[in-house]
């Protein structure tokens, strides 16, 4: 197993995870448990594929995917923030909605139950030691620093964090809790859009039924594992990507049955949660905030 091909796979598998995880992280910092990232990625993978199919211009598809992600997350936000729904169940509901919707639309547009028609892919780069990567890699690196900068240096990020730790305190000084939570979700939606687009038009070159394959959930555990820190999230998502890359090769190389390797990332996450717990979670994450409860 060549190291460089391993690293190359690791990056390809890890980049969508990283983007999704950053999205989940920003949501969490604002106090939202974003279980709907899965649906986010799937929906945007589809939209990206669809628009690319129509225009033959993957960059336009990327843009469309990002906008779709924004709309998706804001929509989900209405249910969670405005209508005070349970974060987890709403997120799951939206996931189901997207699984159903994209599969139906897959049939409707391409008359297929499996793959869409082949699509033009995002521009690729040939890198030394890193193999072929789409430009999303660059976007992802930029995103990591952007999120770090947002949370630590920017006003907006400061308020987002305040809202996630103690929404009542923020409200009492006139910080609009709802608005900042929506903004955080919007950012998450954009990041999820990038992740989804990478899957369909960055890597595969077509849209497949349920192509996100639970990456959204893995992203969530990557965030917990990373202690809600944007720099550590790089490590945890790359680790998961590495595991995935390893698993694909180990199947043929070591004659271990595929299933046992496929479950590695989940097993590792489970074991990691032993003893790590969730101590760094922003205090108000997952709790429903009702204004005026002073």
């Amino acid at each position: 197993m060549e190291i460089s091909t391993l690293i190359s796979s690791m990056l390809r598998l890890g980049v969508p995870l990283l983007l999704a995880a950053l999205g989940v992280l920003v949501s969490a910092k604002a106090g939202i448990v974003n279980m709907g990232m899965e649906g986010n990625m799937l929906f945007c993978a589809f939209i990206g594929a669809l628009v690319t199919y129509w225009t033959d211009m993957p960059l336009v598809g990327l843009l469309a995917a990002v906008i779709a992600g924004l709309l998706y997350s804001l929509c989900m936000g209405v249910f969670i923030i405005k209508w005070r729904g349970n974060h987890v169940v709403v997120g799951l509901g939206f996931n189901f909605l997207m699984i159903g919707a994209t599969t139906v639309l897959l049939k409707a547009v391409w008359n297929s139950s499996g793959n869409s028609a082949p699509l033009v892919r995002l521009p690729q780069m040939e890198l030394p030691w890193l193999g072929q990567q789409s430009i999303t890699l660059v976007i992802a690196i930029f995103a990591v620093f952007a999120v770090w900068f947002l949370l630590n240096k920017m006003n907006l990020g400061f308020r987002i964090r305040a809202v996630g730790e103690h929404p009542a305190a923020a409200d009492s000084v006139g910080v609009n809790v709802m608005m900042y939570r929506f903004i955080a979700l919007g950012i998450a939606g954009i990041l999820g859009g990038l992740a989804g687009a990478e899957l369909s038009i960055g890597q595969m070159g077509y849209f497949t039924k349920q192509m996100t394959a639970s990456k959204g959930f893995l992203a969530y555990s990557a965030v917990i594992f990373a202690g809600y820190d944007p720099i550590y999230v790089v490590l945890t998502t790359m680790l998961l990507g590495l595991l995935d890359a390893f698993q694909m090769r180990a199947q043929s190389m070591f004659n271990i049955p595929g299933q046992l390797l496929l479950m590695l990332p989940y097993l590792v996450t489970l074991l990691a949660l032993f003893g790590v717990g969730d101590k760094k979670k922003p205090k108000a994450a997952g709790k429903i905030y009702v204004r005026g409860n002073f």
Partner: protein
Amino acid sequence: MKNLLSAERMARLKWQLLDLVYVLISIMLALVVGGIFLLILGSNPIEAYYIMFQKAFVSFGAILRRMTIYLLSGLAVAIPVKSGMFNMGGEGQIAAGAMTAAMLGSALALPAGIHPVVCMLGAILVGALLSSISALMKLKFGSSEVVTGIMLNYIVMYILQYLSMYPFRGSPNSAQTAEILETAKIPRLAEGSQASYGLFIALGCCLLFAFIMNRTRFGLELKSAGFNRLAASYQGVRVGVMSVLSMAIGGGLAAMAGAVEVMGGRYLYLDAYFTNYGFDGIAVAYMARNNPLAVIVTAFFLSTLKVGAVALDRQAGVSVYFAIALQGIIIALLVSPYLVESVFNRIRQKRLAKEKEPAIKTAST
């Protein structure tokens, strides 16, 4: 004192009806939204719904069979929620229960009365064990039982896939276990019907748990632990034990769902036969506001929906996934209690203004 009893019964009935009304409203809303979706796709929603429900009722046995599973997987989510835990691991627990029943059903040789019971117990044990892992991790480490539940789902699915492909493979053509022995089968309701007596087992569980929640100390302690851990502990309720126990019960119930489906219908394990029931259970439970009796209604509704969606596919060309999409809308709508509650609040305020209540002073100055 008789007054107190009947007034209390009336009030309790009122609360349960309120839940039901709420559930029905959400279902209506979801159907409307789904109809809009259908319109966009170019189908006639009224026609589509008509076919869906008409065809569904033709194959009533299929509805009952699905309902059996939904009753149990719905309870599997509803009971833990009552004590503040969220059982996300239903998928894995159902499959594990199914596999256990399949293996015990084909490997052991026991007389007809005992065999199904043994299979059931084995399945329950396995399911309870799985969910307890999540519960204990939450207790000891504070890890979210949602995440550990999801992780376990995948781990279990893959392990079972492997087991049914290699060591316990029962057929050369597909990854499934061997068929269970006759002695392990649960008889069908009628000749040629798809549903089995497992339905009554499931219904019995609903009634049993409704009773437990309302009329036993265990149920009281469970609810108190779910509503207010601190106050409950002050009254000697062992809150941690309650959490784990409720999750264990949830896991056991989910596993039962899988076991009943194997013993009453499939007679073997094939992983494709057992997917999605866990997530459906979440929908059933939340639709029913986690009330064991209301679960009967929502389980019936959802299985009608799902069975009808299959018919819709054949007739109107709208795929099964539409039903999944509809379900997603339902869940998302359901957990927006704010909307429906604000309507009810307005009704309640009008009623309060009529009633002459002594001035209720709240503590907030």
